[in-house]
């Protein structure tokens, strides 16, 4: 089939067409190309928007989440009126509005070992805009096994990383990071925060590299890890090497099919909620039960283990403030005879703090399940959720 551009498309893409590096041939390559964006959150928003505007003929989107208020600070595909809608529905609407000439394919599912090969097989380039380690390793392995380029970016607070992992031409993600961090060692954006503009910058780098892959021009980020620091406003580059011992793309690979990535990353329940579950019911207290105990004027010591800037946003009146990192050093401020309830934003850090105190000899400890979010939902709506 010969790809042609309509008069309207020629006008739409005229700023591409007048550059010889793209030209008519390049624009036709874009129209014939297919790209899968895994995740339509922070990175996926600018990525998919620019790919749509550039005229990539078929864009697949994978996500299963719904739009939340806390997404709006950075996920620019989604607007205030979209809160509560499926992200794919919201994304498809905006992308079709940007460019009705292209095809948008929706894969509304959790990207998993069960569906990843089938979903990725039909695309030329895969772009990894996910937000967790299991899915990053899954995306890498699918791309290595299918021989497809994986255009990668990830973000943390003020910093971003970008690269193109294409095992036939350079290192894969596992060559850089043979093992994931232990659960809880590297905070997610939900835990550590992220500057809203950061995914805008890194997602746009991804879109650039996707387009270069399709055009086959320029110097791609293969074998190059690009690092950005927004506070320093500085770019750096290092040169990762292909690891001959890599278990999937090395000389003697041991991984020949997709594995259980949650297990590989040491996560049994999808996230750190496992930490809380492991505590068992005796170590937990619900917000309404805590409220009842406080009403009965029993002596309950509330210890808030969040960070100072979070304490400034909101806290329960009368609680004691000891950030998680200081709990062991400051435990002499607490009395083992008291009934202590540990509090954080959602109940995960406080569960960790509880374990630290338990190992140090405290026994009358409980963790506020759901943290301040639960307290706001069930007891005191004047506490803002963040």
């Amino acid at each position, binding site marked *: 089939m010969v790809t042609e551009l309509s008069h309207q498309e020629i006008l739409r893409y005229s700023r591409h067409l007048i550059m010889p590096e793209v030209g008519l041939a390049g624009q036709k390559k874009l129209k014939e190309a297919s790209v899968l964006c895994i995740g339509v959150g922070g990175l996926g928003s600018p990525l998919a928007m620019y790919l749509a505007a550039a005229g990539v003929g078929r864009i697949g989107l994978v996500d299963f989440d719904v739009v939340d208020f806390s997404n709006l600070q950075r996920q620019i595909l989604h607007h205030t009126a979209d809160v509560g809608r499926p992200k794919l529905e919201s994304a498809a609407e905006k992308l079709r509005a940007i460019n009705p000439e292209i095809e948008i394919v929706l894969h509304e599912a959790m990207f998993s070992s069960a569906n990843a090969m089938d979903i990725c097989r039909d695309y030329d380039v895969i772009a990894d805009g996910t937000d967790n380690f299991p899915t990053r390793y899954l995306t890498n392995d699918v791309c290595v096994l299918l021989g497809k380029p994986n255009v990668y970016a990830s973000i943390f607070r003020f910093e971003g990383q970008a690269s193109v992992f294409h095992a036939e031409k350079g290192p894969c993600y596992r060559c850089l990071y043979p093992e994931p961090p232990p659960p809880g060692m590297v905070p997610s954006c939900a835990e550590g925060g992220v500057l809203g503009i950061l995914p805008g910058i890194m997602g746009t780098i991804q879109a650039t590299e996707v387009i270069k892959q399709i055009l086959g021009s320029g110097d791609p980020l293969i074998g190059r890890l690009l690092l950005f620091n927004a506070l320093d406003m500085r770019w750096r580059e290092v*040169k990762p090497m292909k690891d001959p011992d890599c278990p999937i793309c090395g000389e003697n690979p041991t991984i020949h099919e997709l594995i259980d990535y949650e297990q590989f990353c040491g996560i049994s329940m999808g996230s750190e909620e496992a930490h809380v579950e492991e505590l068992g019911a005796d170590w937990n207290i619900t917000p309404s039960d805590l409220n009842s105990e406080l009403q009965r004027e029993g002596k309950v010591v509330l210890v808030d283990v969040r960070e100072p800037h979070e304490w400034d946003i909101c806290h329960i009146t009368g609680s004691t403030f000891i950030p998680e990192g200081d709990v062991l050093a400051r435990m002499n401020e607490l009395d083992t005879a008291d009934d202590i309830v540990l509090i954080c934003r959602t109940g995960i850090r406080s569960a960790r703090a509880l374990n630290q105190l338990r190992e140090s000899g405290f026994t009358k400890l409980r963790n506020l399940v759901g943290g301040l979010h639960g307290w706001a939902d069930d007891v005191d709506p004047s506490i803002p959720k963040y």
Partner: protein
Amino acid sequence: MSTVTVSLSGALAAVAGVTNIEVEASSLSEVLTGLSTRYGGAFNEKLYDANGKPRRFINIYVNGRDYRFLKKLDTELANKDEVSLIPAVSGG
């Protein structure tokens, strides 16, 4: 001894509270020892595994080259060399 510029990022920068520092060292292992002494417990917990080796999710580069393909921790350093410690990050 050489004066080496060290760049920290991700979870390591978060616990150290800095992104760029200068360290006096003649080998990569001396750089890590210097950082450990300077930043202590929480930093060491992130940097080292139970066997006292740098964790596998932390990439270490000397002048942009992966230390695993140089002389690992014995990699010798000269004045103005740049050492980067880059942990994996997953946010998106």
